[in-house]
């Protein structure tokens, strides 16, 4: 009996420490940033600004959570930005075409557009996954190639001109609508993140992704089928990128090949890495990546409000990213040194 009590105490202490270790200093930084900005500039907590932040953070969080999944499994997905653009263009174009063929049939128009957008996300994901898992080509190079190809296809479809002709229901009724005082993108993002958290923690798929990223040999020895799950990570990543593309399209009201792009890709990797996803694979949690996406968005917003030259902003992003990973490595070294 007494041993149980003695054992219980240190365990809860280590739990606390490990929780702090896993989440890291990010939430603290976030609170600090919000508190500081609120004190400095009342414009920061104005409704318009907050909604703006949440909308942008949602889009980044969706892409970043897919990216995080790929990184946990030991890869990188450079094609997410291009997929955002392609999905946007394809969705808009499909809706415009369907609208011309079946005028007035809004449900069909929207369904076909969304399906086409998500479909091309899945397609790119399958190509990525197939090349990485079956052909054993480095994920970095494969997604570099599909990034170029996907962006090219997006531009080919539109010749670089925005695509209009989507039903009002889709733009005003969905993209620019609000429910419970929050933009639809926020609801979609929360739903997507909850699903991803559930998938990571409670499903076989999530468990196997961690195992593969943590130690491929052990996963093989334990009978985990590697290829299927690697393909899965790339498909989910592309699918989420496509979802973001559709949300952006609905918000803006036109399909554009300039959405997403390198910037979105780089930011998604930054958000994942700052959110504690180790580029070594096997470690990282979606909910913290979401917080990290929120943090990066607020940081950008704060720098804007403080009239910091927007051109200087990438410097902050770069430094924070490198610092986050360097700190992670240092703490790893200290841990292994104990």
């Amino acid at each position, binding site marked *: 009996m007494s041993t149980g009590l003695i054992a219980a105490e240190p365990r809860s202490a280590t739990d606390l420490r490990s929780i702090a270790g896993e989440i890291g200093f990010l939430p603290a930084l976030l609170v600090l940033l919000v508190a500081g900005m609120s004190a400095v500039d009342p414009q920061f907590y104005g409704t318009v600004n907050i909604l703006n932040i949440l909308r942008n953070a949602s889009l980044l969080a969706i892409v970043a959570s897919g990216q995080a999944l790929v990184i946990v499994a030991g890869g990188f997905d450079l094609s997410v930005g291009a997929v955002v653009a392609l999905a946007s263009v394809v969705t808009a174009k499909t809706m415009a075409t369907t609208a011309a063929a079946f005028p007035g049939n809004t449900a069909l128009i929207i369904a076909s557009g969304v399906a086409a957008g998500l479909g091309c996300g899945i397609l790119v994901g399958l190509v990525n996954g197939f090349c990485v898992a079956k052909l054993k080509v480095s994920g970095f190079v494969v997604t570099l190639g599909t990034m170029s190809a996907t962006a090219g296809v997006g531009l080919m479809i539109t010749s670089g001109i925005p695509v209009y002709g989507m039903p009002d229901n889709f733009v005003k009724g969905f993209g620019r609508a609000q429910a419970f005082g929050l933009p639809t993108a926020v609801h979609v993002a929360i739903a997507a993140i909850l699903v991803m958290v559930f998938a990571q923690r409670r499903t*076989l798929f999530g468990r196997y992704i961690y195992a593969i*990223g*943590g130690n491929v040999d052990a*996963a*093989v*020895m*334990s009978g985990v089928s590697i290829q299927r799950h690697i393909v899965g990570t790339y498909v989910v990543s592309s699918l989420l990128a496509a979802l973001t593309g559709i949300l952006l399209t609905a918000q803006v009201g036109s399909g554009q090949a300039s959405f997403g792009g390198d910037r979105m890709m780089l930011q998604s990797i930054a958000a994942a890495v700052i959110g504690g996803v180790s580029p070594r694979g096997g470690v990282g949690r979606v909910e913290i990546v979401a917080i990290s996406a929120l943090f990066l968005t607020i940081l950008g917003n704060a720098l804007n409000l403080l009239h910091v030259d927007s051109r200087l902003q990438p410097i902050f992003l770069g430094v924070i990213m490198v610092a986050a990973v360097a700190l992670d490595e240092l703490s790893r070294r200290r841990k*292994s*040194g*104990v």
Partner: protein
Amino acid sequence: MHLPPLNRPPEKPMDTDIDPQLVPPLLRLRGISKRFSGVRALDRVDLDVRAGELHVLFGENGAGKSTLINLVSGTFPPDEGTFHFAGDAIHNFTPQRARAIGISPVFQEFSLVPSLTVEENLFLGREVARSGVLRSGQMRKRARALIDELGFDLDPSRRVDDLSRAHQQMAEIAKALLGKIRLLILDEPTASLTERETGRLFELIARLKSQNVGLIYVSHRMREIRALADRVTVLRDGRHIRTLDAATSTDGELVELMTGRKIDLLFPTIAHEPDKLMVDIENLTLTDGSVCDVSLHARAGEITGIAGLVGCGKSELIRAIYGIEPTASGTIRIDGAPYESPAPRRSLKRGIAYFPANRIAEGLALSRSIRENASMTVLDLPAFARFGILRQAVERTRIAGIMAQLQLRPPNIERPAGALSGGNRQKVMLGRALTRELTVFLFDEPSVGIDVGAKLEVYEFMKRLVEAGAAVIVVSSELPEVLALSNRLYVMHHGRIAAELTGAEKTEQNVLSSFFRDHLTAEVA
């Protein structure tokens, strides 16, 4: 606690009166061959394992034991030969298949994912799930029940990378015992366990045998073989030498079969002439705690041996001297002068060379040529490079000369190091010793993965070094090897020096009992 694997009734209840010879064996391998990198790891090996039997695989490092158990576990397919399990011919064998038919391996190199918890690792690949959703509560309950039943002191919710080596070993064993098993493979399972945990494991083995589970057990330890084995198969140089009944065979017979010659013939007689104090270590403790408060010394003109079980800190100790394990406290003196914060480059400049146990991971750049591999440690010397520019002609003649001296076969130094056999790879490493002025030689498991002939050459090489007046420290898990080579022998246990043996005290008995003594003192304290 009721547990499926241990309390499950035997698959085929056998009448003990039946002559085991008449019952088809659980596992039957015939004519199994396997090649790696041009090296024949297994050469037409036969093996039978009966249900309810503990079958020991006995052989030197590199004899093919680990290749064989990897084949049986489905890690890779054989190049030729047939594989029968429970009477069925098995083709296209994979780890998944192995699990499914009840073959469960416990490897020395752990099949655990470091970033997952013990419990997550136990169920890896066979999670309890309904339509893809994990049932964590149920798994937790089963994991706890299994660990309780095994009597291991192991917390299933801890992450594996937070565990000690012994605890990782327990997790590995628990993982193998989860689910249906018919053949359990144990590869030196006691290497990092304490006496008490070893006792629990042996009880468990007895229970599994009574439930008709077949066991393949790899071990070097005579004591364990005596206590557990029903039959012993001896492997040498990838070939099946003989299978004997454990009860009727003697230790000497086994060792002779293993080495292929009388044991005392294997080692050269070395004329030790202890001279100057070359390495003097006082109260050395490493940052990771693997070595704790160790004092030891080595003299020129003698071989100083360090024996101990896997994970006792003996490798870490010499790695710290060379500068690839961080030290926390203590002093190292080389040739009388203090040596602070060691690093490989400075060690070489001071005349210290280190020969790693894992030559693939830490020794050689396999796709580069033998020449480049042998000259890797001398690129800082003006003889090999001036103002940063390589003197390739000098390099070529020097390395070719050294490799000829070491009798590298074939003598072409432009071949990639990866094309060489284990013994020749070790020769490339030894070649480094001849490229520059060195006085202290640290050998970490010098005979791992090389055949008997090459071993002899390595020993002869050490003999020449010592007789030329160098200080040599040999770390080895092969007791006969360190016993025969060393003039003085340190025994390490749990990161500390447990004994220092010289002359007539240097016996296998004394080494083993110093482990035991250490346990007693630990319990008293």
